[in-house]
């Protein structure tokens, strides 16, 4: 059985893998923005920049638990979670805008958590919001799959669902503070989800498009 300190190290390494994956997806999306000036890709790039920054802050905070001389205030933890939640918000927001363009009703659903979750603790609220945003992203991605029947879209929905489960376990780990395994489990689940999201990026890199500066 792994000791809690080892779990922290494993969790921290996974956080930094998450940083790499997030920034890789953001980079490809940003290249797409430069090539096509697409607002959908702008929102996608923004989402993954926020997620990458959030994971980076959480990873650095995690280092503080491995290296005792490093100490961080609670506000840094909150800042990390806030960045991550912003990332999930932009992921959901991308879909909401897409839904609006398609003349469907989706924004009302997006506004719901702001009304219903006031009064809870900030960290709890951020975790619940993250879960909600990811869940919304999963639903919209599944709708897109139904429309396009593209296997990659279903894979991304699966990845987002894994991240959603991760954010839910993250919330549980906040409720049950003494269970270290929950904290690691939420990171592992999120990382599996992120690695699934990485699949289109891998294919893109293999395709080797060097197309900067056309538009």
């Amino acid at each position, binding site marked *: 059985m792994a000791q809690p300190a080892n779990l922290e190290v494993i969790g921290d390494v996974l956080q930094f893998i998450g940083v790499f994956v997030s920034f890789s997806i953001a980079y*490809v*999306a940003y*290249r*797409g923005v430069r*090539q*096509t*000036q*697409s*607002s*959908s*890709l702008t929102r*996608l790039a923004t989402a993954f920049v926020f997620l990458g920054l959030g994971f980076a802050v959480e990873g650095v905070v995690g280092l503080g638990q491995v290296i005792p001389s490093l100490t961080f205030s609670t506000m840094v933890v909150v800042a990390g979670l806030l960045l991550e939640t912003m990332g999930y918000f932009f992921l959901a927001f*991308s*879909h909401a805008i*897409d839904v609006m*363009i*398609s*003349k469907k009703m989706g924004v009302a659903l997006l506004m719901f958590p702001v009304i219903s979750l006031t009064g809870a603790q900030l960290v709890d609220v951020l975790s619940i919001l993250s879960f909600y945003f990811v869940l919304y*992203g999963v639903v*919209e*991605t*599944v*709708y*897109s*799959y139904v429309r*396009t029947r*593209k296997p*990659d*879209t279903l*894979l*991304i*929905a699966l990845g987002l669902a894994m991240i959603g489960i991760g954010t839910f376990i993250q919330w549980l780990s906040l409720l049950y503070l003494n269970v270290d395994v929950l904290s690691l489990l939420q990171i592992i689940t999120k990382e599996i989800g992120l690695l699934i*999201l990485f*699949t*289109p*990026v891998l294919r*893109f890199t293999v*395709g080797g*498009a060097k*197309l900067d500066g*056309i*538009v």
Partner: protein
Amino acid sequence: MASYRTQVRIIADVLSTARDMNIEGNGVGVTMLLRKGNMSYSRMSKLLSELVGSGLILELSGDKISKYMISDKGIQFLEAYYQFEDFAQSFGLRL
């Protein structure tokens, strides 16, 4: 359900028409672009002058009417567009 086309999608549609309909190699007329592009003449004229200006499409001036042909830069743009469209669709988004 009908859905709005983004500006970049409209550009890609015009470029792909200019590429696919140029069977004889002497360009595609505005009528064909209008039919496939599904937009008004004034809007198409404005778009074509922009595409010619940016080098994505070539204007072949004839005696009476101009014809249009996709340029190498336009083909590169289309390839990039389809790749990024595929990427965006993977995330359930439209380009």
